[in-house]
């Protein structure tokens, strides 16, 4: 019956859209219940000491501002330490660091290039503070970010805290799309924290209890997705990861399609390869929502995006082909000067259309919640770009990552 109504390709689309709808509703339900539950006031505690590690490789353009943002944190200076690890930069980063290391509280380590995880691992074993924060050199922390994140450690079960990431450069077309994407991610990360299902401790800023590394080990190369792998390892060891939605960290986003493609290919491929490594943890009840729902749903949504946007592109190509055939048969016909008449008969009323409209409306709602959490920054045209174009753009790295994983097994670079 459904096959007769929709056709075989549409059944796939229907399945994909239904799953997406279910996922959105589930996130919304968890968010609503949590926001309606009474706020638990935790006891005040003396602030813990924190060391911020900044690994950097050729970051001459941003390192100074990044360090400044740490130095401007509203946190007792005697409890805040900064370690900058230069991972063999060959631009003017070493010079800048030499100049800055004279400042009190900054310790600089220089080493040969070996990758981000090696830069972090060289610093972590020597740290004696209660907490260890990692911060990418192209990111800048809000002055209240640290104190807001540290609050979360008042819960003794919390072993790591993630922030709310924002885009620093939002003026370009890609910047606006990413700004909306990051706004949605603020909502999603917030809900995932409630589900104990955060699976990335993002490089731009994450804070860990010191014992995390002594208990489960240091960062691993992990297919250039060390922040994802560490979070997964923590979850496998039943370590709680919290999220401070009001701890804002801005990060420089890729400004060209090529750089965005490279970044996202690295992320997607890193995710897929780590899913292969952590495959045994999927559908295990002891890993709760992460193993039973979030990771399988992430894998399904990746496949679903490929199916959905490939079929949309196929539709657009066949439409162009149809117009081309018409043109080759009867030439170009000039549009009539009269206003086109709207015949309701030709309005597409497939169930797919209704589902797409519902999903889009829900996406707008989720982004709006994320926007409120992010301090109501205006998204301007970003929402429109995101809703109508992001899927098509993302398809390029989804397909490349899938092809890379299945056919080539080629590694990506961390920068």
């Amino acid at each position, binding site marked *: 019956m459904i096959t007769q109504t929709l056709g075989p390709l549409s059944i796939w689309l229907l399945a994909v859209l239904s799953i997406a*709808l279910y996922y959105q509703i589930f996130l919304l339900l*968890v968010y609503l219940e949590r926001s309606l539950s009474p706020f638990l006031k935790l006891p005040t505690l003396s602030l813990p000491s924190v060391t911020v590690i900044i690994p950097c490789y050729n970051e001459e353009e941003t390192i100074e501002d990044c360090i400044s943002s740490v130095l401007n944190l509203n946190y007792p200076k005697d409890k805040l330490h900064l370690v900058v690890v230069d991972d063999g930069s060959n631009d003017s980063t070493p010079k800048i660091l030499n100049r800055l290391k004279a400042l009190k509280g900054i310790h600089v380590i220089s080493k040969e290039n070996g990758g981000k995880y090696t830069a972090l691992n060289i610093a972590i074993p020597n740290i004696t503070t209660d907490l260890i924060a990692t911060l990418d050199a192209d990111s800048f922390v809000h002055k209240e970010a640290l104190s807001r994140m540290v609050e979360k450690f008042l819960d003794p079960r919390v072993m790591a805290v993630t922030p709310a990431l924002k885009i620093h450069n939002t003026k370009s077309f890609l910047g606006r799309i990413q700004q909306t994407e990051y706004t949605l991610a603020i909502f999603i990360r917030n809900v995932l924290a409630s589900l104990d299902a955060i699976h990335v401790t993002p490089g731009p800023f994450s804070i860990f209890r010191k014992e995390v590394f002594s208990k489960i080990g240091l960062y691993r190369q992990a297919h250039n997705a060390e922040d994802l792998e560490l979070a997964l390892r923590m979850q496998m060891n039943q370590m709680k990861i919290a999220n401070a939605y009001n701890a804002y960290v801005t990060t420089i986003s890729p400004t060209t399609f090529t750089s965005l493609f490279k970044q996202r290919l690295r992320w997607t491929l890193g995710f897929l390869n780590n899913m292969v490594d952590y495959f045994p943890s999927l559908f295990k009840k002891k890993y709760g929502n992460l193993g039973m729902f979030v990771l399988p749903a992430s894998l399904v949504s990746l496949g679903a995006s490929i199916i959905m946007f490939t079929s949309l592109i196929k539709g657009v190509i066949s439409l162009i082909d*149809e117009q081309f055939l018409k043109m080759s*048969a*009867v030439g170009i016909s000039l549009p009539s000067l009269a206003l086109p008449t709207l015949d309701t008969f030709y309005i597409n009323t497939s169930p797919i259309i209704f589902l797409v409209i519902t999903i889009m409306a829900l996406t707008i709602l989720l982004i709006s919640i994320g926007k409120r959490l992010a301090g109501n920054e205006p998204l301007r045209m970003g929402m429109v770009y995101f809703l109508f174009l992001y899927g098509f753009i993302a398809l390029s790295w989804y397909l490349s990552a899938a092809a890379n994983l299945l056919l080539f097994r080629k590694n990506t670079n961390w920068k």
Partner: protein
Amino acid sequence: MRIFYFRHHITALLIALAIVATSFFISALLTDNRIQEIRSIEDKISMDILSAETQFALLELAACEHLGETFLSQELRDLSQRLSYMEQTLGLENPEVVNLKKYYSLLQIKDYLLMQRAREKCEDIAPISIVYFYSNKGGCRDCIRQGHVLSRFGELHEQVRIYAFDYHLAFPAIQTLVALYEVEENLPALLIGENVMYGYLTLDDLYVMFPDLLKDLEEEKKDKQEDTPINELLEAL
């Protein structure tokens, strides 16, 4: 101990299923309305054909001019476009679409036969009939192009009546027509008069067959140019 949020999963699942079911319900309701619309158009055409047949039976008594009033080309064209859209949205195999298409084919055959008879009696005013066999199977790109050419040809000349038949539609009336004119499965195929032509024909090819229509078109263009507001003003002066 981690919580699985079982209740939330079930609630989300139920809400999602309800939305999907509602989408299907609304869509089915609107599709049903469309099918009813097509049915009512088909019924109207059927009645018009019956009326024309009756009129034709009286032709012995009536003048040929009255036949012109029964021409249904616009209705048939509209119906063809609507059916084509339903095929695209509901699929070629959809039983409702197949039934509507069969009825439409039957109406076309009846109209074609009526016009053949009319041509014998009133050659000057009876429309020109072109029977077109196409296929939706096997990606017949020339069939799509031929469809566009014939649609344009029909739009340009009201006196041309295009009857389009799906060669592979399992319907005895079409199979009889195919057998009667020995139409081979080499599509697209056009039946003009008693001749069957195979392969893609351009507008120019059609005008070679119907030179009078080209003359009409050129004259019409000329008239339009002369009827421009400036020319009319000059004429008035």
